[in-house]
């Protein structure tokens, strides 16, 4: 096992995750999966708010999201608002490669822990700063959550029925996770640069920018033609038809997407109506787009005459791109998820209980990541870290504890 550990790409990298909830912490989670030692620095009272986000468990009331997403981390309690807490934090920073934080701009500075101070203590430090709006610009001080970021970044406007109430784009935490991904890319690029130059830097990530960046031609199409994209509902027929969600006889849903004429020909064959793909009918994407309602109607009628299993079986037989709209129960029963080991059962330490969490993405052939443990108890590793890393004595530690610094 040890040989495997030291073989991981981030073995020897120490990360301090002083952030809360999902966005910046998810970056630390990814780094931890691939070998980094992640210290979760939390406030002694209550710790990370993620411990209370979602469904509580038998383990000190920590939620499932905490257990799953704080995987591989060691919890160290430290009150950064206390001068002694700030002092200890600086001592830890001197021995750290990456710091992840998501305080509102100016907060760390107020505690004397701004980038200028920290980078002087450790010029090799890489710091990921995540906020709703970024470290600069007129809105930088506004409170920002993923839902607000979805709205500001332009993705919420696009989700929902045309002219109807815009809905959540699938998941309320999407922007948090996506920002964690962007942040992680920033940190890895900065590590690469540090290898060459010895110099650290900081990464300024904003929740709204992460969703905004993933908007295909939204920006240039407005810039050039003043085209304002509206909500599409279940069908996006600007570029391809059919491309949407269809209900089956048993009240379930399938997604079908025919991005090209060849794919539509396969669908026509699956429907037992190959003539639909002839050039005189709907063989041409441009014609289908002009008659999107009619084409969708045909596919809708066909889908509603069959069960979901039947629709999918026929689509797969002709290699038509189609899939069930899986709910989580479908996912737990799916053999592809099982074959890929996307779900993994992990013991919750000392409770005799096991929970199932999403496994690591991406899969690396030589150095796959690993989940060593689930989210730690609050302060579970405070003592070992202060002793091992900073050489503190038992007396010092109990004195700090008495004063609620840790």
């Amino acid at each position, binding site marked *: 096992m040890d040989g495997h550990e030291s073989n991981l*790409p981030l073995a020897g990298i120490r990360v301090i995750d002083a952030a809360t909830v999902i966005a910046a912490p998810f970056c630390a989670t990814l780094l931890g999966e691939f070998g980094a030692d992640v210290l979760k620095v939390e406030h002694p009272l209550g710790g990370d708010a993620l411990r209370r986000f*979602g469904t509580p468990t038998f383990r000190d009331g920590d939620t*499932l*999201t905490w257990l*799953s997403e704080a995987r591989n981390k060691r919890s160290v309690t430290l009150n950064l608002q206390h001068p002694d807490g700030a002092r200890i934090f600086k001592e830890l920073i001197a021995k750290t490669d990456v710091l992840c934080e998501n305080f509102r701009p100016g907060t760390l*500075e107020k505690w004397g822990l701004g*980038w200028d101070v920290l980078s002087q203590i450790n010029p090799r430090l890489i710091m990921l700063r995540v906020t709703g*709006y970024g470290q*600069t*610009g*007129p809105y930088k001080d506004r*409170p920002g959550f993923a839902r*607000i970021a979805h709205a500001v*970044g*332009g993705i919420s406007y*696009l989700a929902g*029925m045309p002219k109807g*109430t815009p809905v959540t784009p699938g998941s*309320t935490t999407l922007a948090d996770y996506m920002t964690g*991904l*962007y942040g992680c*890319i920033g940190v*890895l690029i*900065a*590590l*690469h*640069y540090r290898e060459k130059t010895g110099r*650290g830097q*900081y990464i*300024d990530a904003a929740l709204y920018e*992460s969703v*905004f*960046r*993933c908007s*295909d*031609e*939204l*920006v240039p199409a*407005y*810039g*050039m*033609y003043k*085209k304002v994209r509206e909500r599409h509902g279940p069908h996006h027929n600007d570029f391809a038809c059919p491309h*949407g969600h269809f209900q089956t006889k048993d009240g379930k849903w399938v997604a079908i*997407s025919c991005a*090209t004429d060849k794919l539509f020909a396969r669908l026509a064959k699956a429907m037992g109506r190959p003539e639909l793909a002839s050039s005189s009918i709907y063989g041409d994407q441009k014609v289908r787009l002009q008659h999107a309602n009619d084409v969708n109607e045909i596919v809708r009628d066909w889908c509603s005459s069959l069960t979901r299993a039947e629709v999918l079986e026929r689509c*797969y037989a002709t290699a038509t*791109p189609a*899939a069930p*709209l899986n*709910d989580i129960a479908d*996912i*737990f029963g799916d053999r*592809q998820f099982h074959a890929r080991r996307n*779900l993994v059962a992990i013991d919750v330490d000392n409770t005799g209980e096991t*929970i199932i969490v*999403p496994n690591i993405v*991406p*899969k690396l*052939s030589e150095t796959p990541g690993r989940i060593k443990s689930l989210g730690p108890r609050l302060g579970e590793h405070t003592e070992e870290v202060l002793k091992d890393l900073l050489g503190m004595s038992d007396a010092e530690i109990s004195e700090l504890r008495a004063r609620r610094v840790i």
Partner: protein
Amino acid sequence: MTKRTRSASAASQTIAETEQTGGSGETTSPLAPDSTSVGSGDQEASATPVAFSTVDTFAAEAPFAERSSENPDRMPLSGIRVIDVGNFLAGPYAASILGEFGAEVLKVEHPIGGDPMRRFGTPTTRHDATLAWLSEARNRKSVTIDLRQREGVELFLKLVAKSDVLIENFRPGTMEEWGLGWDVLREANPSLVMLRVSGYGQTGPYRRRSGFAHIAHAFGGLSYLSGFPGETPVLPGTAPLGDYIASLFGAIGILLALRHREKTGRGQMIDVGIYEAVFRLLDEIAPAYGLFGKIREREGAGSFIAVPHGHFRTKDDKWVAIACTTDKMFERLAEAMERPELASPELYGDQRKRLAARDTVNQITIEWVGSLTRDEVMRRCLEKEVPVGPLNSIADIFEDEHFRARGNLVCVEAEGVGEVVVPNVVPTLSETPGRITNLGPPLGNATYEVLRELLNISADEIKRLRSRKII
């Protein structure tokens, strides 16, 4: 002000200008906590009526201005060569990111027509480029090679031998059919890092099924959650979301693998299924089903976690998002509504009470928001620090001062098309910010250069390859 000039060939000149600016010692401290961006909204507005920063201004006016002349090439990934042989976005976007931070990206395309993304989306005056192509194929050189011909495969292997990273997204088994499986590629270059993106991944019973983002959103569980309870599930905002998400995971895999290669000299293969990239982001949905059998359903504009937490229509028929995740935030909202009593413990001060009275609390919010214009709701909420945001359309985004100040929109000259506004680089790095050197290249614009200079193939031979449609 040279940095205001829009140069025709934006990129290389931009970098040169940046260095000059640095030499003159014009720096802004990135350290001061309250330092606003150099390119702040006011400045932009007074300088030009055009809402976007140009490539030039982004590079020159980025808030991180500490520049050194001792290291002229500050790009962290300079010296890394990436081959992107994928189509559309799932995987290729990872190449875009690497390119933004200094990697050389060669887009290897079929000689006839090239990447189908050249025809996907809104057309431009250039027959080989839609707007989506121009924006997302940024920072690439195009090299045409027909991988379905034996000589094309040989040529490709020579290119692989001189590259660091290969990105592909064919249906699993396709590259193997062409004689370009991982075993062959790895033999050609033992230190190669290869990213393979596909709908379902390289393994498992569904690996051969065709998968696009739309399919992956459904299969990965995201589409089921989009829309109103009991009603038609809608698209989760944008069609290619999963392509981007898979690429972000892919880029992380590549950067990890490059690090491992630095230490060991050995390359490896990264395998991403679009569906699993999407599924990975669904917070506690898996453990909650595993432990309690809880199936999450569509939640419309709301969330099971908190109330009010959703989208509300304003008097002028626009929309705002309000997210009161904690009691404190609801208290602020009640103050903004000038009804502080709503946040009392007897009424709705407690999240559990609000969740129990979800419809009533939402109705109160709907009525208040509906009685005011969007600007007015925003002003009152912001005054009390309620988490609020407009549901921006793209037109709103182009008008927004924060997008402008952050340089999120950037105007870049595209060969044969003119200026195109595209989203700028994310994330922002203080020492080594990324940059856009060029937009989606014309088909085959670097074939000759790459074959001649990198592979040392003679001009005559190149001519012969071209006449036989191998390149």
